[in-house]
Every structure is written in C-alpha cells, then in structure tokens.
C-alpha cells in the first residue's frame, strides 16, 4: 500500500432547492476513489449543510493515485424514490504526489452538473500520505513534475534538458452520436468526463515513467490533446520536454531565478555549422512554386488512405562570415564539442523540444520553420491496449520533421507542437517546429554547470544576432534565399527573412514594436466520402500552405518587418471547405536586412491600366510608411556610424576592428545589391491577384494605444504594469449563401477575424495603453455552413512613459546571476560606470541610431547598472493602479461591514450589554452620519453569511504575471468539462448557453487553484472548445478542455513576505497575499 488518500467533507453552500414542497434539500455526499465509496450522513432540510464528516481513508497504489481522480457526488436524499444527484466534483490529486507542490487541497469547489451547470459549492479537504516505494519495476511515476509552461519555470534552473517525450492512449468513446439520440445524455456525458479524466491521469503517469527512465525529474512544455474521433474512438495524446530541474530557493534575492528571458547572449558561436545536403526543395515564398513535396498515395495495409506531407522550411538562415575562417578560430576542440552534441542528439530518436523560449546560451542558430501534415482515414481502434496505428502515424510525421530539420543543417527542432483536425472520418495530422542548433552544454550528461569549463573555447558571439546566423552551408542551401552579412556583427551570413515557431529570444535586438500578423484562407472542396475525400484534401493542402505563406510574406513586408515569431498554422477541415489560419508576431530584427518594399507589376495591360497599377502601388507604399510610423520602426543606420563606434573592452578590440573593416567592405556591396533585394514583385495578372492585393490592405491597424502579438513577450514592450485581463471569445458564423466562391469566403473569414480583434480593442479600451498578448486563434468547421473561431488571449497594461527603454530593460528586472556570470566584460568596468550610467541608461538605449556594436555594448552596461539601481527602476511599476492589490486591501466598505458584523454576532452571544456598545462603535465607524439619539441597538441577525470572501485568482496564457514573481508551482491543471442543455432557448440561446459555460469553466479552474493554495494560473490555454447545437430540438452541447499551471506568485515589490505567503497560501487564505 504505497499511499493513503484522506478526504473530509466539511460543508456545502448555495445548494439548489431539490424539494419543491419544503423549498429545501436533504443533501448527502458520496466520496469515491477507484472502487471504494464512502457516504456522509444526510444533512436534512438545508441549503447550506454542515457535514463535518470524519476523514474518509482510501488505501491505494500510487499508480491509481496518478490515474484516478477523487470523485465527489452530492445527492439529495429521497426516502421513497431514487436519490437525485445534485452534481459532482472531480479532484485531480496529482499535485499532492510530489513534495514540492501543494501539501493539501482544501477549499470550496463548485458542484457541477452537465445539465444544470454549477449548483452550489462544497468544501472539501484532501490529503495524501505517500510511503516510499523502492520497487524498481514500479508502474507509477509519482514525483515527476509537469509544467504547461513552454520555458524553464521561473523558480527552477534547468541542469539538463533530456528531450522529447510522447505518449498516447486510446479508448472507445462512451457516446459518439449523442446529438441524435439523447437518451440519458447526462449519464453518457458523465461517463465521458470520468473516462477522459482517467485517461489523462494514465497518460501523465506513462509520460512520467519515460522521464524517469531518461533520468529527468520534470516535463516542461507539456501539451496534452484529445482527438474526438467519433465512432472510431477517443485518443488522448501528449508531448513534452523532459528536463532535470533544480529548485531555486525562493527566499533568496530575485536575481537568482533563472528567468527564461536572459539578457546575455549565448556564449558560444556557431562557426562551423554542419552542412547537410538539402535534398528537398521546399516551398519558398514569392517564388513560383518550386514545390515538389512528396505527395505519395500510399494505400497501406492499415487502411490509411492518403499520405500527404508537405515540408515548409520557410526561408531563414544564417551564414557564417566566411565558412573557413570561422572554423579556424574555433579550433579543433570546438569541433569536437560540436560533434559530441551532434551525436548526443542524433542518438535520440527525436531531437525535439516543445519549449519556445530558452535559458541563456541554449539556442545557437535558428534554421527556419519545419512542418509536416498527413491526411488519414480513421478506422475503429480495435485494441485499445495497443494503439499502434496512431503511434505509427505520428512516428511517420516526426520522422519527416526530423529530416526537414536535417535539410536545414540543424540537429534539433524547437518550439515543436502537434495538432489534428477531424471531420467525419478524415483526419489531418500536423506537426511543426523550428529547426535549430543548440548549445552542446545542455545536452551532455554530467556537465551541469553552465559557463565555467567551456568558457575559454567560446567565441563571444554577438549577443543579439547569433541566433539569426544561418546554420546551413551557404554553398549548399536547402532552398533559394538571399543571404547577406549580418547587420550586427558583420561576420556571418543572415537570411533576408526569418520565420520561427518560437518566442523572440529576449536578447535579440529589435527595432520598434512587434505586431500580430495573420494570414487567412478558405478553400471550397467538394463533398466526398472516404478515400476520395482524403485525396481531395491532400491535393488542396500544398496550395493552401503556399498561399498562406505568400500572404504572411506580403503582410510582413507591408509592415516593414523582417521576421516572424510564434508562427502557428492551423488547417481545419470541414465537409465542404478547408480553413487555413496562420498567426505570428512580426518584428524587425536589426540583424537582418531591411525588407524591401512591394512592387506591383501588371502583366496583362489590356485588363488593367497603368494608372490603376500605380494607384495600387501608391496605396501600398503609403501603407508601408504608415506602418513604419505606427510600429516605430527606425532601424539603426549602419553606414558610417558603425565604423566609429568605440568598444571599451580591450580584448575585443582587434576582432571588432577587423569586423569593421569587413563590414565596410560589405557595405558597398550591400548598397549595390539594394536594388536587387528590393525587388519583391507582386504580379497582377488577373482579377484574383487584384483581390489578393486588396485583401492585403484590409487589415486595419490596431487603434491608438493598443498593440497585439501572439507570443510570450511583446517585442518592444517590456515595462508591464499589473493590469491583466485574460479572456476567451467564441464566434460562430453561419454562411447562408449556398454558392459562395473562394474569394467570397476569404472575405467573410478575414472579416470575421478582423471584427473579432476590433471587438477586443473596444471592450478593453479602458486598459489603454495595453497590449493583447498570446492571441491564440483556433478555427473549426463544426458543421457544413458554420465557421467557428475561438480566441484566448490576455490584455496587459504597460507604462507608456517608459516604452522607449526597450529590450535591455526587461531582463534586467529579472536579471539572472548566471547571465551575469556569462558576461564577457569584466564586472568592475560595469560597476565603475554604473553609478554614472543609471541616469543616462535609458537615453543610451533609446538612441536607435547608435551603431549596432555600440548598442549591444550599452545594453550590457545597462544590465549591470540597472541591476544596481533596481529600486529606482521598480518604482513606476509599484505606483500603477491594480485591481489585484485593490482586492487585497480588503478594507473596502463591504469587507469592513462583513468583518464587523461577524464580530458583533459573536459578541452578542456573551452579553447583551457588551453587544450594545460594540454595535454602537461599529455604526459610528462605518458611517459618518451621527446616530440618532437612543438608536444604538443591538445588531441581531437571524441569518448568517458565509463570512469568507473568495480568493482572487488571476489567469494568463503567458508564463509570467507582470509585476510578480512566481514562488511556487503547485501542479498542473488539466480539466475537461461537458455541458449540455435541452432548453436552449430558455438559457438565452446558444450565446447564453456558451457564455455561462465558459464562465463556469473559469470558475472551476479558479476554485481548484485556490484550493491548492494558489492565486494564479499561468500558461493557461483552452485547448478544445467543441460546440454542437440542434436548435430545432432546442438542444446544444459543448466540450471544453483547459490546462495551465497553478502557481503562487507574489508582488515583486514585497520580496520579504515570500516565506509567510507560502504558508498562508497553503491554508487557502491567500487573499491576503501581496500577490498580483
């Protein structure tokens, strides 16, 4: 018996009336774990029952502890007929299974019913006692920590990153045709909820086992998904990155946490990038399709029909200054190191990482986006214990990704994710990531410390451009791209544009602000069945990918930017159409060449007058100019200034001088080639092309005061204040017009997305200046003529006054010791200059025209000096208005009243005389109006209020909350809910139904976090929102799956209280936390 689970049912409140006659309820509770069930006594005739039960004890295997949820069912006792269920609570006890997380789950949980939604709340306490189990062959993986966060969690340090872990489990779906035959929908939906809860527990346990096998202790970037395959079953699959994490002591100074946004650069350089043969010639933007993706029709024995895949290593690259010379500098030892990593990675089946941002020095070079898609026909899963087919499918796709990455000269894939889109029996499997070269140090076993031994071999790579340098061989490029020397270091080659799926590395030098860029596309398709359908879809896919990329590229140029981060392309399949949505955050990387404009060329003079063309050209040029202004893109002028920049660090002088001379050579070349580079030509050869160009110009810029991005951090903004508003929005459009064209559909789809954004801006206007971060759009085609778009994002306020202090500022506040250790510059130098630099720091970084080399030097200086002058930097944050702190203050009228009323009631039990005086003092305190004479009476109340107020729980899809520090991760939140109704009209139609369901899901997430002792959810995401309706029958149903990390965070301004907060947090009284 390796574990003992204990549960205690304390009380209920706000229960629904179950007995019409008495307007009351006779409630009791069943507590179930595995096959054991306990019951409480019936608490007769009360809507606020107090059970105060004994401790129910379950003695179970830790394997079960991981798989099973604790099931709590609240029922209404009925003497004559069957007891009526009021609702249920599922509690995932996984967070109790590792020592560092929560030690008790205690709090009010909403009682949830799939038909009625939330029906009151129940107060439960759960504890686990684990016994040590030394069995080597154990099936459980208790103790492995899970994080949804796609970076190294704030209060941990990664000593080793082991790599990719994946697992999937399959089962029959208890109810797949629910909508047509609603017999006992509640029963089947509850079965479904329970099953999925079980399956995700099992999945997590299995992944944990793999992590233990690899020698890790945690999974970061854990991504779990459901495939509701309908008749063929239910698949739950997950991927993640296994790591060995070290906890940093939370009491120590803020500097000690390894933040994922380091401000120093990778200390090593990629000088001798491996050159691999790019045997595929993938899709290149703007070029006439040279796309020869392997579309092979394989009818395999497993009855999977069409296997299609397209690889899109989207043009990005780097170069080394001169392949040969770099090699010389590195020396043989480096080469050896490189080879070691290489092999270390190659030994792994899949060198994939689900992380999107990395510790300093981890990411060396980025190759480009790699993606693969495959169309499959679903078949009944015959043997749930052997999910080979699905495994094989994913295996195939991953192999393909791996080979794409090789083609780009990269040995790893970062920012990796997988997804599916299912319509009837057709399923599109997609995977994408960013090909990259990683620093060997993290890969090698036994080399846990960063920045000591390897130090001397390292060539100081330019901190803010290294990752842009191409990893592949210039002479043997995998696809056509224009290479130039890096605009920063002038030593290595960079591509003209860079697309990635990761977050912008915080050390990257950017000009201006970033912005959300979306490409949207609809393609009609004939209705078909089976293999014909699958073939039709796979034939359409390459064209969609191509068009999405063209759109992205055009929009990027239109905004005068040269790189995309966080690129996510979703292709969703419906019965008669395919929807494609690509979202990314555009940014101007100063290391990359300035994007040329867009030139319009007419091909058929007969159709279009040259005036027309020139008017379009003018509009485009104007738009580019406006956008440059809007996003404040004023890249540093490199020309002469670059030469004169003084570099105070002697060690580097020689090298820098040389690079200067190189760059000046280069400059003349660049100027010459400018004309060529500029030639990004859009040809107008038919009306379609005109439409395309018009649609380009439709995208309205966000209104003044708003910025938007879909990544973790907003390029160009870092001085967040504490205003945070996470939201979910769902919009479904019904297409009434039967004979729509592709063009018409595109317009509708584009408008839908644009209007959604406009709605957000309007709704959140009170937060200006504000940025919508992590805008995550999901599209679906739930029925033939419906398009559904689901968006989750967070709006965060920032301090407008400080926006000029860009990139260097943010890492400073979260500055890491390790980062500082890695500084190549002597610390004394910084210390000396710091005092004088504090005041001028911002000025220095503002001057965007500073030569690049100087700029980076200055940023390092600022990093130091700002570290010293931290308190001055912090104060503007503290002064900001904040709802969280408002809640904390609690001394509002309401709280005061409540508190007092409470005291008084207690007082009145003792002596009436005393009560009287108390009452008097209260009244005089509470209101200014004097009491009327002779009116000080006792406060006697026959009703009691539940005195406690509700903990404020903040939610964000990001890995951090501005102005706060995470001191503890309490465990993963992974919840699945189904809600159904048979009285759709009465519940306010589909919108009313979904609105209350989403609000309920939020409420349940918050309640679980609060019960764990937390006050926030980070890396929150809504991974599934499947909505189905049948208005004729007045019915609807919705499934929602959400996940995130429950955390305790405290305000950055009161570090000292951290220890005490952790304790109060445990008892659930964290409303007094200085947090958020």
């Amino acid at each position, binding site marked *: 018996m390796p574990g003992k689970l204990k549960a205690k049912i304390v009380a209920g409140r706000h229960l629904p009336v179950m007995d019409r006659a008495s307007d009351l309820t006779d409630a009791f509770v069943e507590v179930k774990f595995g096959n054991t069930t306990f019951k409480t006594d019936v608490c007769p005739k009360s809507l606020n029952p107090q059970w105060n039960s004994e401790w129910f004890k379950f003695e179970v295997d830790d394997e079960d502890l991981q798989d099973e949820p604790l099931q709590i069912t609240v029922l209404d006792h009925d003497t004559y007929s069957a007891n009526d269920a009021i609702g249920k609570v599922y509690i995932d006890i996984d967070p109790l299974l590792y020592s560092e997380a929560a030690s008790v789950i205690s709090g009010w949980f909403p009682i949830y019913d799939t038909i009625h939604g939330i029906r009151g709340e129940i107060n439960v306490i759960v504890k686990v006692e684990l016994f040590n189990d030394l069995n080597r062959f154990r099936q459980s993986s208790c103790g492995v920590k899970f994080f949804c966060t796609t970076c190294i969690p704030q209060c941990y340090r990664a000593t080793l990153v082991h790599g990719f872990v994946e697992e999937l489990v399959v089962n029959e779906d208890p109810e797949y045709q629910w909508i047509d035959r609603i017999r006992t929908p509640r029963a089947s939906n509850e079965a479904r909820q329970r099953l999925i809860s079980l399956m995700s527990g099992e999945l997590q346990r299995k992944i944990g086992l793999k992590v233990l096998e690899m020698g890790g202790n945690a999974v970061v970037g854990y991504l779990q998904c459901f495939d509701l395959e309908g008749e063929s079953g239910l698949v739950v699959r997950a991927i993640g990155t296994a790591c060995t994490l070290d906890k940093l002591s939370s009491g120590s100074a803020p500097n000690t946490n390894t933040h994922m946004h380091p401000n120093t650069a990778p200390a090593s350089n990629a000088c001798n990038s491996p050159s691999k043969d790019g045997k595929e010639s993938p899709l290149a933007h703007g070029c006439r399709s040279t796309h020869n993706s392997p579309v092979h029709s394989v009818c395999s024995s497993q009855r999977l029909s069409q296997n299609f895949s397209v690889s899109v290593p989207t043009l990005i690259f780097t170069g080394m200054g001169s392949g040969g010379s770099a090699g010389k500098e590195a020396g043989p030892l480096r080469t050896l190191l490189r080879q070691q990593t290489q092999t270390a990675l190659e030994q792994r089946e899949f060198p994939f990482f689900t992380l999107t941002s990395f510790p300093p020095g981890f990411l060396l070079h980025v190759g480009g986006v790699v993606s693969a898609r495959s169309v499959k026909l679903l078949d009944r899963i015959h043997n749930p214990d052997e999910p080979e087919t699905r495994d094989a499918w994913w295996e195939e796709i991953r192999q393909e990704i791996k080979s794409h990455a090789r083609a780009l000269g990269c040995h790893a894939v970062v920012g990796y994710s997988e997804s599916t889109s299912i319509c009837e029996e057709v399923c599109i499997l997609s995977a994408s990531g960013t090909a990259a070269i990683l620093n060997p140090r993290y890969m090698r076993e036994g080399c846990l410390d960063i920045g000591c031994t390897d130090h001397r071999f390292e060539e100081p790579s330019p901190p803010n451009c290294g990752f842009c340098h191409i990893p592949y061989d210039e002479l043997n490029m995998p696809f056509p791209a224009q290479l130039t020397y890096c605009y920063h270091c002038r030593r290595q080659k960079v591509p003209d544009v860079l697309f990635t799926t990761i977050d912008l590395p915080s050390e990257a030098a950017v000009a201006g602000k970033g912005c959300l860029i979306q490409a949207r596309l609809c393609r009609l398709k004939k209705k078909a069945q089976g293999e014909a359908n699958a073939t039709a879809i796979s034939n359409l896919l390459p064209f969609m990918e191509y068009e999405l990329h063209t759109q992205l590229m055009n929009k990027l140029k239109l905004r005068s930017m040269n790189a995309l981060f966080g690129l996510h392309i979703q292709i969703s399949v419906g019965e008669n159409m395919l929807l494609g949505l690509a979202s990314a955050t555009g940014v101007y990387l100063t290391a990359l060449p300035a994007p040329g404009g867009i030139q319009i060329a007419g091909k058929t003079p007969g159709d279009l007058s040259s005036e027309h063309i020139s008017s379009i050209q003018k509009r485009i040029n104007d738009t580019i100019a406006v956008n440059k202004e809007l996003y404040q893109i004023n890249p540093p002028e490199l020309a002469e200034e670059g030469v004169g920049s003084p570099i105070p660090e002697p060690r580097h002088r020689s090298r820098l001088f040389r690079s200067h001379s190189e760059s000046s050579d280069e400059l003349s070349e660049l100027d010459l080639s400018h004309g060529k580079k500029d030639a990004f030509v859009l040809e107008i050869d038919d009306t379609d092309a005109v439409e395309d160009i018009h649609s380009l110009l439709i995208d309205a810029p966000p209104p003044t005061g708003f910025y938007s991005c879909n990544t973790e951090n907003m390029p160009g903004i870092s001085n967040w204040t504490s205003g945070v508003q996470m939201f979910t929005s769902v919009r479904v459009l019904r297409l009434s*017009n039967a004979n729509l064209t592709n063009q018409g559909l595109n317009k509708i789809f584009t408008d839908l997305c644009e209007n959604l954004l406009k709605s957000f801006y309007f709704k959140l206007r009170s937060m200006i200046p504000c940025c919508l971060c992590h805008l995550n759009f999901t599209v679906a085609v739930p029925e033939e003529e419906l398009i559904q778009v689901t968006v989750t994002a967070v709006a965060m306020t920032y301090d407008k006054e400080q926006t000029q202090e860009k990139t260097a500022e943010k890492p400073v506040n979260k500055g890491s010791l390790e980062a500082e250790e890695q500084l190549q510059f002597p610390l004394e130098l910084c210390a000396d200059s710091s005092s004088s630099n504090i005041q001028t720091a911002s000025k220095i970084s503002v001057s965007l025209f500073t030569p690049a080399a100087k700029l980076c030097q200055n940023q390092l200086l600022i990093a130091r000096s700002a570290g010293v002058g931290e308190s001055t930097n912090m104060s503007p944050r503290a002064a900001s208005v904040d709802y969280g702190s408002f809640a904390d203050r609690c001394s509002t009228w*309401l709280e005061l009243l409540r508190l007092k009323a409470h005291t008084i009631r207690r007082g009145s039990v003792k002596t009436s005389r005393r009560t009287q005086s108390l009452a008097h003092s209260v009244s005089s305190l509470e209101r200014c109006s004097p009491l009327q004479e002779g009116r*000080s*009476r006792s406060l006697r109340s026959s009703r009691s209020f*539940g005195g406690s107020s509700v903990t404020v729980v903040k939610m964000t899809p990001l890995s951090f909350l501005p102005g706060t520090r995470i001191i503890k991760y309490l465990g993963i939140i992974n919840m699945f809910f189904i809600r159904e109704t048979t009285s759709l009209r009465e519940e306010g139609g589909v919108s009313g139904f979904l609105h209350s369901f989403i609000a309920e899901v939020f409420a349940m997430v918050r309640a679980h976090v609060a019960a764990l002792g937390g006050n926030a959810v980070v890396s929150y995401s809504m991974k599934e929102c499947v909505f189905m309706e049948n208005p004729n029958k007045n019915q609807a149903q919705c499934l929602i799956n959400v996940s995130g990390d429950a955390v305790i965070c405290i305000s950055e301004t009161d570090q000292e209280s951290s220890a005490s907060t952790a304790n109060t947090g445990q008892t659930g009284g964290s409303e007094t936390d200085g947090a958020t």
Partner: protein
Amino acid sequence: MSVELDVFVGNTTIMDEEVYQLWLDGYTVNDAVKVRMEGGVMDECEASKDVLLSDTMDQYRTFQMCERLLHSPAKLANQLLFQIPPHRQIMLIERYYAFDDTFVREVLGKKLSKGTKKDLDDISTKTSVTLKSCRRQFDNFKRVFKVVEELKGPLVENIRQHFLLSDKLARDYAAIVFFANNRFETGKRKLQYLSFQDFAFCAGQLISNWTVGAVDNMVEDMDVDLDKEFLQELKELKILITDKDLLDQHKSLVCTALRGKTKVFIEMEGSFKNLSRGLINIAAKLTNTKDVRDFFIDLVEKFIEPCRSDRWSAADMKLYLTHYTNSAHILDTFKHQVVWDRYMGVVKSCIFKMYHD
C-alpha cells in the same frame, strides 16, 4: 451570412457602468446601442455599430446572469462564477437597488402585492420609467420587504446587512418598507406636492420615535409597527382641547411668546384653537389603523393648508410650533409631558419638512 453565436468572457468580469445603467433603465439591446452611439463611444476606439452591438449583447447577458445573485447581494461576495472586484460589486448592488423617485412616489404606501404589480404599466406610462425598470424596482421593494418582515432588530441595520446597501439607500428602503407596512396614504391629490424624500424623512422620524424599538431597544419586536401603548397614551392629550381652561391657558402662553415676533400674529391668534384641535385630534385617533393611514393627509388638511392660506412663512410656522410645543410644559395641570414631547417632536419635524410648495 449571420453571426450565430458571439460571446466574450473575461476572467475578471468586464462591466461597463454606462451599459449597466442602460440595462437597469430597461433599454432593449437595440435602443441601448443607439444611446451609446449618440454618446460618442464609437469614436473612442474606432468601433463600428456591429462591435457596439456585440459588446452590448455580451454585457446584457452578463447582467442577466448576475441578476440572480443581486437578488441576495450577500451571495455576490462569495459566489465563484464571476470574479468581480469588491468595489465593482458594491457598484453593482447599489445601482441595482437604486430607484427612480418618480416611480417610488407612485407606489409609496401601497400594498406590495400582485395587484399593484399589475398597475405597473400605468405607472410606467405616467412616470415614463420603462416597464422593465418599474418591475425591477417594484420587485426590489417587495424582496426587501419580505426579508426584513421576518427579521428582528433595527430596520435600517437589517436592510443594510442583508442587501449590503449604503446607509442612505438603506434608509430609503426602510422608509419604503415602513410605508408599505402601515399603508400610509400618499397618493391623494393634496399630497402630490410632496416628494419621496419628504416622506422618507418623515418615515425616519416615525421609525425612530414612534415604533416599539424607539423606547426599548432590547424588545424583540419589529421596527415597522407603531408602538401601540404610545398610541393609546396619545388619547390623554385630548385634555388640551377638551379642558377649556387648559386650552385658553395654552393659547395665551403661546400668544404672549409670539407677540411682536411675526407679521402674521393676528392670524395665528385667530386660528390657534382650530390648529390645536386639529393636531390633537390626529393624535387621539391614531389607535385606528384607518386613521394611521391618513396621518399625512390629516397633517396637510388640518394644519398645513390653514397655515398656508393665512400666508404663514416657513419661519412663522416653525416659530409657532416651537412655542406651541414648549408652552405645554408650563401648563400646571397638564401631566402628559413625555407623551407630548414624543408626539410633537415627530409632528413638528414632519411639518417642517412638508411645509413647502
């Protein structure tokens, strides 16, 4: 092409105070959109009509879902469904329970029954408050009435605790409950000139001085009923008008005090007996529920109107009533000083408040 479904849910519930007011005022979504457009909110964020419509619908839905909680405001603070900052909760409650003075004036003193509810459309037309808003306000009155009806202890405190209202609003509700319970007549033509605030003030006076709770705050009784014993004792005051000597003595004392201090002295002297009879008859009749209901109309008919027709200024009236009250203390044979003070204290301040145009 049509929007089938459109929702926006924030972790912290987003509520626009302007839209909330429009919702409370009973505007339909479309009317609310029109009002907002005219208000110029569109210019703020380059919004279109569609955006405004979508936002308004979202907010209306949110308010509808919150409405259930607003019916028992204590629940709002410890419910889990909506995360609403405390200051917003207070705003929501305060505004939900706010009412139009014109509307409340119409139902003041009426029985809060189904019958009255049926008349709400008439009241709506008359006061140009939308029917929806009328219903909300009426239901609020009724809800508060029902809750405090069963409670012991001071009325205002009870309302404040159970509905978490501000002091001012709690007092107004106490007045409404008190009037509804005693069914005071306020609708007669002669009383039309009085505002709700006039009555609310009078109610406050009556509650503090004439109810059971006024004398003994430990008695477990309701604040809404008048002190029966006191009403009985009021009959004793009749001696002031039935005893000829006492009446004359009283008059001469008052007249001596007033002489030379007012322009309407002649009128005061002339109407003394009438006015005194009026006031004391009102007191003596208060044991009948029917006469309690007519308390305010009686005050107007028996005292305020005669004074006004004699063109007394407010100051004159105050002067007169002060001396009228105080002089009674000097009367040797008048033994009911305590009752007299308790009665006249309230009557005096009520008349002060009611004596205007």
